[in-house]
């Protein structure tokens, strides 16, 4: 078994603002080359954590290391190996796409020749080569986000931080951006650390940390989280309610009867299927829904992720 290195290590991290504790003793590790997500509602402490890892904020206590470098005491070393895409666009609207990318190369000490090559590659990756000379103000929200992703790659970072990368974008753009992120990760083996409050994004990640009011309440792969905290649900519609009820009673299933359908919690799907096949005529429609991460969140905290 390959021993994968942990590229991000956070231990007992606390962030307080006067009396308000934004992050309350948080610890976690991120494997190199993985996609890691922080999932949780607004105000949970996700942005504070990511901003501290990006060296913008100072911690109150604890230790944060990226690639073995201390985020508090080796800031410059950390800044050279991380790339950041913020929640809102931080592009200079009054400059062209190319000018923005060149500015970035200046900041990271990339020589002029190297810069031209890398800009070409990055823009090509996000399909925006044609817009190189366009004013940033003329781009749509989704395109701006893609430019920011391209920009964050120019200095070949080891870790890419994405703070709510698709918030505020339409579904089609969101899907595209995710395509790029996944493509990126595969080709360059970059570690991706993101925060989100979209469950469907968190589902794609290798590991998810669920955060609420400053604490990590769960940390595991999406699959294991759902296994541990949720049950699959089966939704059955029928024309013969009595028949279905007696069938379910026979199998010892507790059910909820709703207008138009029955819902059942299922542990063992094949077993349910065997039971239902005994009297197939009773069923007009069957849908099986797996638990979602929102269900996980609900189960752990009693709240929905989106209020």
């Amino acid at each position, binding site marked *: 078994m390959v021993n994968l290195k942990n590229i991000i290590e956070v231990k007992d991290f606390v962030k307080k603002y006067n009396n308000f504790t934004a992050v309350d003793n948080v610890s976690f590790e991120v494997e190199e080359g993985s996609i890691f997500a922080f999932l949780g509602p607004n*105000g949970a402490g996700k942005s504070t954590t990511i901003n501290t890892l990006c060296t913008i904020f100072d911690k109150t206590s604890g230790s944060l290391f990226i690639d073995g470098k201390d985020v508090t005491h080796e800031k410059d070393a950390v800044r*050279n190996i991380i790339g950041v895409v913020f929640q809102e*666009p931080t592009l200079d609207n009054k*400059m062209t796409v190319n000018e923005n990318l060149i500015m970035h190369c200046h900041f990271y000490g990339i020589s002029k020749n190297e810069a031209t090559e890398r800009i070409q590659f990055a823009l090509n990756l996000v399909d925006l080569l044609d817009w190189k000379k366009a004013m940033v103000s003329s781009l749509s929200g989704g395109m701006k986000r893609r430019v920011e992703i391209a920009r964050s790659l120019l200095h070949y970072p080891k870790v890419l931080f994405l703070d709510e990368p698709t918030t505020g974008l339409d579904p089609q753009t969101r899907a595209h951006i995710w395509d790029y992120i996944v493509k990126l990760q595969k080709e360059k083996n970059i570690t991706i650390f993101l925060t989100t409050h979209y469950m469907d994004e968190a589902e794609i990640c290798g590991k998810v940390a669920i955060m609420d009011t400053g604490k990590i309440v769960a940390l595991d792969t999406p699959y294991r989280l759902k296994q541990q905290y949720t049950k699959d649900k089966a939704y059955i519609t029928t024309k013969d309610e009595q028949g279905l009820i007696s069938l379910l009673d026979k199998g010892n299933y507790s059910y909820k009867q709703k207008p138009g359908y029955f819902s059942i919690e299922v542990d063992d799907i094949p077993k349910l299927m065997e039971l239902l096949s005994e009297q197939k005529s009773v069923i007009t429609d069957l849908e099986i829904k797996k638990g979602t991460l929102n269900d996980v969140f609900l189960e752990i905290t009693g709240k929905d992720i989106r209020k």
Partner: protein
Amino acid sequence: MDIVLALWYRNIKIFTRNRVQLSFTIIMPFFFLYVFSAIFKNDNILNPVNYMLAGIVITTVFQTSLSIATSTIEDIVSGFMKEVLVSPVKRIQIAAGQLLSAATIATLQGIIILFIGYFIGLKFTSIITPFAVIGVMIVVGLVFSGLGLYIAALVKNSQTFQIVIMAITMPLTFLCGAYIPLSLLPNVLQYIAYFNPMTYTTAFFRTIILEKTTLTTDQLIAEQLAFKIGNFVITPAISMFIVIVFGFVFLLLSTYVFSKVDFSRINRSKSKEGDIWS
């Protein structure tokens, strides 16, 4: 250095594209000139308009450099600067870029007002004067952008920030002799004016721009270009020295404090505490 220039250039570009702001900063001083020039008429001052104009130019430089430097923090909190903060660019390079661009923009505005003033009657007899004038403007721009950056880095609360800026700009502008001659101020305010770096800046600048460097001490005092405190006379040369000392102090303080600022504690937006980036 490359980075400082890149930041400097970007700020200049943005400023030159904001035409509304530009027009306002040019029109306002001339309004003041019209209103206040009557106050300066007395026997000793030959040309009150030029006298006032000089004061206006230098206070414009002062106010512009102060306001641009203080807006550095707003720039950082919202937008473009965030990208700079996570990059390996050192804080001191950011500070340098901001200070230099504030001073440059302030000087450019001063030059524009001077240029218009030329048509009202402000003339130079010596060829050295324009260069000296621009030189002084740059120095003044640097001095007060240092002060602005220092204030911006210190004051973290959004409500007090606006008040602090007002509280600093108003007395510095009106208690320096630029709009109201010091001799017309009540004694207490005159006394306070002697602690105001702008007072010495204005006196020194006027001496240079009105080409009064060859006057005797008594004449200088009569024209309010030198000050007599007790038995000690502060000549324009000493004024210049005072200004430069202030400048060093401000610049050192500002770059030091700016390097150490914890941006998570800056709450300039109206969102809840700690919510600054979300």
